[in-house]
């Protein structure tokens, strides 16, 4: 028998401090999610319609027949795989591994620069990379200098440009987590392998990676979840264009709900995004549980 069941009154007083947080969470987070699940099944519009009616799975059926939606799904996939799975993780791990061997001043300098990119407000980061990728921007100037062909990145390969932007902005997080994880590997293990003559790559593959696999799992999850909800960065750089070539799901959702006034349809897309997020979230919690 727990204390709580013996003293129901006391249990209530003890739970009281949780109530302000609970009220906020229910009204402004759980509420909208529940409301989301409801209006996704209606034809709610912003203008010209007094009442909305229940349309069942119509919005979802419409979505999966809508080429623009399928395009957004594909671009979200490309964006997530390129920037989160490949970019942020690999670069973060590479930076963390190099930092283990680098001299201290270099380590501090590089860490500072990468973290600054992470701390900057989303919109500012968007502008900086917009300037970087524009036709008359820095990237093309550098390419010219190296006698490499330049092009209008934001026009020809916008999804690549925004993916790089997300790598620029998000790598610091993986770098920090991986640095912490690498620091926890006992020195004796890597030293022993080094004395035995195992090369850097082999040590990385056979010793380091297996030892930090849980950090890799959680970092992948968190990077992916963060990348799924990127809006401001892409909005500032390309507005999802040109012609939807960088329109990921959040931007598609926004366009449907507000530019086309189809709140019901936009919300159905949001609900799908939320479901994908929930799946990643559950996987993440499982990974954590094995760690605890």
């Amino acid at each position, binding site marked *: 028998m727990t204390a709580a069941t013996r003293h129901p009154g006391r*249990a209530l007083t003890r739970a009281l*401090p949780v109530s302000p*947080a609970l009220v906020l969470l229910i009204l402004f987070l759980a509420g909208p999610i529940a409301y989301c699940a409801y209006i996704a099944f209606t034809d709610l519009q912003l203008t010209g319609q007094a009442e909305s009616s229940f349309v069942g799975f119509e919005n979802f059926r419409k979505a999966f027949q809508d080429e623009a939606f399928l395009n957004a799904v594909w671009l979200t996939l490309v964006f997530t795989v390129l920037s989160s799975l490949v970019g942020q993780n690999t670069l973060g791990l590479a930076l963390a591994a190099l930092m283990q*061997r680098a001299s201290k001043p270099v380590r501090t300098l590089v860490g500072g620069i990468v973290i600054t990119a992470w701390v900057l407000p989303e919109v500012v980061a968007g*502008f900086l990379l917009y300037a970087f990728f524009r036709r008359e921007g*820095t990237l093309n100037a550098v390419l010219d200098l190296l006698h490499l062909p330049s092009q209008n990145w934001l026009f020809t390969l916008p999804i690549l440009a925004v993916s790089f932007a997300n790598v620029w902005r998000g790598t610091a997080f993986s770098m920090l987590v991986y640095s912490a994880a690498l620091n926890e590997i006992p020195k004796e293990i890597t030293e022993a392998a080094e004395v035995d003559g195992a090369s850097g790559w082999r040590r990385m593959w056979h010793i380091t990676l297996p030892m930090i696999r849980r*950090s890799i799992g959680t970092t992948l999850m968190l990077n992916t979840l963060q990348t799924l909800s990127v809006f401001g960065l892409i909005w500032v750089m390309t507005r999802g264009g040109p012609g939807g070539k960088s329109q990921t799901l959040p931007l598609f959702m*926004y366009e449907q709900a507000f530019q086309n006034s189809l709140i019901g349809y936009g919300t159905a897309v949001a609900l799908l995004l939320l479901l994908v997020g929930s799946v990643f979230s559950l996987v993440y919690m499982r990974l954590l549980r094995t760690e605890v």
Partner: protein
Amino acid sequence: MALTLTSRRKRHRLAADAGLLVVAAAFCLPLAWVVLSAVDPDANLQVKAPDGLTFDNFDAILTQDITFTPLLNSLILCGGGTLLTVVCAALAAYPLSRFRSRLNRPFLLTILFATCLPVTAIMVPVYALFVQVDLIDTMQGTIFFFAASQLPFAIWLMKNFMDGVPKELEEAAWTDGASSFQLLIRIVLPLMGPGVAVVTVFSFVMMWGNFFVPFMLLLTPDQMPAAVSINEFFGNRGAVVYGQLAAFSIVYSTPVILLYVLIARRLGGGFALGGAVKG
């Protein structure tokens, strides 16, 4: 062996330094643009040595309309949101950390789950909901939503810090008849000062940089925080003056960079704490 272990290490260090510096240079280019353009009388979209050193760009943007009102709005929104978040999180974390209840685990798991949800996805229904309850285009509505969206992570973080404060210290005061609330205010929170600072600064930084939430929930230009008003540099004011845009970006970013530096050491790699970091 021709190469001894130490000389091999030295060579590795040089290679690692070189590799890192190349990456750093690439990361640096966009940052260099904003710094150089801000003091360049003739800035364009490229990183280049300024044509001369000037503070005209800062002079031009440091006006009521362009800078001070949006920054004040940001301060009200993020200050209000952070205050609400920290107070609610501290109150909620106390029973979760101190008393055992069979509800703790499910609650904490729900919180952890919520930390990871893509908040961007619920902005459309939040907008629709806010229109119905007349909270759209209000500062308080935006503050409430900011607080709610940051709360799961704040509670999670706060509870972890609180678990680190030994219980024995409270027990003496407890026997002297202090209430739980007094214990929290007088003993626990002061002992976890750095933890509270981390939660506060982190919440503030997340809200300060957030674009989508105020972009959706606020309509009146006078209420826009800097995150949204920065868009004004494009279009509305005619040709984009890149020097001024850069100067404004610096003014707007400085507070969060300073705050981050303040708590950086505490955060370190500590995100292994297992919460989501969004934004």
